[in-house]
């Protein structure tokens, strides 16, 4: 049994007012802890897809899946396997930048295939996409320059082989 690891769960849900509230209310009531949450339209009309990252062992994840499935507005739930999936997150990072440090920051961004999407006299905004490790490493490297603001979308995942 895998204990307390980050697990990714996706759910296909009705795109109706209050659905997100129903889902988060169930998470809160049953004591499940959400590390990240991403919501967006799916390939089907009137249906959204949600991706949750939660901490827990197999028993917790099983309960969570069953309780999600119980909700009338939830159509389909699956736990992403830890392998054979593409996992991505987008972040915008505002970092302190002076004329002296700008060049170094651009170099770091390049290494991470990140883009500079905004520049002001004393800061820059970097856009980066990737998995959690990549986000964390970039943030660590930028800390020395002064991290002013970090905005992350939450992880989304997709199985490499088949439609979920």
């Amino acid at each position, binding site marked *: 049994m895998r204990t307390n690891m980050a697990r990714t769960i996706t759910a296909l849900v009705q795109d109706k007012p209050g659905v997100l509230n*129903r889902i988060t209310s169930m998470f809160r009531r049953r004591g499940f802890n959400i590390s990240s949450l991403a919501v967006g339209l799916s390939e089907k009309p009137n249906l959204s897809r949600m991706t949750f990252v939660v901490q827990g062992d197999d028993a917790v994840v099983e309960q969570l899946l069953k309780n999600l499935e*119980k909700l009338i*507005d939830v159509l389909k739930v699956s736990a992403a396997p830890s392998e054979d999936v593409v996992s991505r997150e987008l972040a915008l990072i505002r970092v302190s930048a002076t004329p002296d440090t700008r060049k170094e920051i651009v170099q770091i961004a390049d290494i991470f295939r990140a883009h500079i999407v905004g520049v002001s006299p004393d800061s820059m905004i970097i856009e980066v996409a990737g998995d959690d490790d990549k986000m964390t490493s970039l943030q660590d490297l930028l800390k020395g320059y002064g991290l002013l603001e970090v905005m992350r979308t939450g992880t989304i995942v997709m199985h490499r082989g088949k439609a979920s």
Partner: protein
Amino acid sequence: MKRNGGQIVCESLLRQGVDVVFGLPGGAILPLYQTLPEYPQLRHILVRHEQGAAHAADGYARATGRPGVAWATSGPGATNLVTGIATAHMDSIPMVIITGQVSRDAIGSDAFQETDITGITLPITKHNYLVMNASELPGVIAEAFHIASTGRPGPVLVDIPKDVFVEETEVSFPDIVDLIGYKPTIKGNDRQIKRAVKLIEKAKRPVILAGHGVIFSEAYNELKSLAEKAQIPVITTLLGISCFPEDHVLSVGMPGMHGMAYASLAIEESDLLLAVGMRFDDRIIGNPTEFAKDSKKIHIEIDPSEIGKNISVDVPIVGDAKHILAALVELSPTKTHPDWVKRITDLKRSHPSLDIRATDKLLPQFIIKKLSMATNGDAIIVTGVGQHQMWAAQYYTFTNPRSFITSGGAGSMGYEVPGAMGVQVGQPNKTVWSIAGDGGFQMTMCEIATMVENKIPVKIAIINNNFLGMVRQWQQFFYESSYVATEYSHNPDFVKLAEAFGILGIRVTKQDQVESAINQAMEYEGPVIVDFVVEAEENVYPMIPSGQTVHDMIEEPRHSESQRIS
């Protein structure tokens, strides 16, 4: 033909076979009320407090198997329903609740009597709706009944703004409901059923633990056939009581915190536990790591999220109890376990949990036993929550399905009076006894006025010990008899109270008055209050303290003599 929202609601209810609604009007729901005279087939029972409406609809549903309906106005009307909705949700009771809401343009403005009731009831309903157009009403109400009464049943709330009741629209009523996100599993998996049959074949000490689900799916005959064919003793949970006749040779009663010692011990000693339509509640399992450690477990349950929640099982079978039990009856071998049956008989003899000690005092257990005999086990018993509830569960002999009605999961004191009212409305030809505590009775006793007005002849037996008795018992056992805030030193005179309501009141203080009082109450035409002034500090035995095991059971100190009650 154009109809307004109120008319659509009433017609939808009639299409669902609803014959009675419990409710109380107010501003936001008034347009619905004003359409009622057009629908004389829809009986409305005007309650004194909305909690009473919700409990009555719940009692109606438990007694009939059909969804109960309650409605109330916005704001405080809606919030007063909340205890009743939570009670129904915990016990999976099919109910449709309609609330008035402030007009659409006022929603979100903190308008007079505005409360976000769909937000409040999110965790205590199976589903809920806020309907923003009259044209959606036929679909929503059909869905509400479908969701409430299928799969694992539960309450569904429909919140309707005042101006939606007034809005006129052309509508058609749907014949079928098809929800893509809601398809309960009914038929059990064949492979799992075969695995279960193998376990039944091999078992030497099997027991069935039957719960509320057997009653929901009305699987009484299938349960009895399986028990008899494979000779498996049957234990029932609190809410499973009455799904298997207690005068049957294979009946072993209720286990758990206040269950019969022999039932808890039989589970402990079993090598196969066949759990049907139940959820391994903490009151039954005590310590989850110690519960029935040596038994293989089969769990038949319609709600997949209950499987593996508290207890891990060997063979889970998701589906409807009636279908799955029928398959098990067909596939299981004819078996006998004479040693095991004898062992249970011995356990019953060595742990006589239902003996009543010899005394001159008026004991609650004695009253329930007398009531069971006087009614020939044929009444419907509705209780509140606490000591009297446990004594009723223990000492009444239940032989008819749906004859024991009680708030199990939520443990809502105050259920006894309005709950019994709903039961009597649903079963007008039955004798309905509300066994009440003096505490719970006073929480909702206002509904006696409703009973008088609507000629609902519930017989109320107050087991009056002038205490919040179960809490007092906990204080005695676990807090060195420090009785903080559990004594009612000045209860009203319940006989005079009966007279004030215009009904018969009888006080009983001695054993020899019990039988005649019960008979007098049943001969009287309307509702009755019988005030049984009982031994105040009597305890419910046995008791397995919270979270502990069958080995920590406190049994009643052995008395030299027990009463023969005839």
